[in-house]
């Protein structure tokens, strides 16, 4: 299943609901384009909801990192929401779990933006 993304606004925060797989050449490009599009339109508070993401490979992780740093470099903030166990484990073994701001509750995630 390739990746599908949809965006919604909650209290000035853009939530990107992701589903499917973020892998080399598939979801990774879709994710990159979506985040860049959001930033270009001034949406700099972004939450990636990964609840329905069943697989991420190393390129997908690279895209998460890219989305995180691109957003930060443009004065924005990007948080991750609802990690599945597999994605959680991936971020743990790559030592990225503490780099990202990971949230488990959407309301709390939205409120956490400055």
């Amino acid at each position, binding site marked *: 299943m390739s990746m599908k993304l949809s965006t919604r606004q909650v209290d000035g925060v853009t939530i990107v609901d992701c589903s499917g797989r973020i892998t*080399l*050449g598939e979801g990774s490009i879709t994710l990159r384009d979506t985040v860049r599009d959001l930033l270009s339109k001034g949406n700099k508070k972004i939450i990636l909801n990964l609840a329905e993401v069943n697989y991420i490979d*190393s390129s997908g992780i690279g895209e998460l990192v890219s989305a995180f740093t691109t957003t930060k470099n443009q004065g924005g903030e990007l948080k991750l929401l609802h990690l599945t166990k597999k994605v959680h484990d991936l971020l743990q073994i790559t030592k990225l779990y503490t780099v990202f701001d990971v949230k488990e509750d959407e309301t709390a995630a939205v409120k956490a933006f400055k």
Partner: protein
Amino acid sequence: MHFRIGLNLHVRIRASIEQGLDEAEHAIRVWSWNGGGLLIAGFHRQVERRPAFGVREIDIRSVIHQIERQIVVAVLHGNQYAPDKKVILAFERTPDGLVITIRDQGKGIDLSGIPNPLAPENLLKTSGRGIFLMRSFMDEVEIRPSKTGTEVKLIKHVHGSSVGNKEGSQ
């Protein structure tokens, strides 16, 4: 550039592991260009049916993901999309486990140029985690680069019996 693994390929890989389709080589060819994207087709040929590999106890899905990932890397980085070059995929059940070999026909890779993705200075890099993750999910990974291509051997240990044993083939 978009790159897709066809469902057919996923199904064939799963079948090869679960049903024990083995022997000789399964050649995966670049199938077509599609709107700037590349679609790779499934196996050229499917050889004789063998007893199952007996790998129910391992996480087949994660093994398939690693195989798919390496096939994409082989076509993209190894063969560099050359439509006349193939990626060869072979399965072998040894007494210790399942051995998957993926070979491309590229120019080989320089393993010394791959940095440690866990080093603090590399944590925010957007690439360089592929081999590390492959080693995390598989029990053994052997990479043999050469000027005529790179061979990657993925090994997943399977406790229990091997090909031909009733228990292992259930």
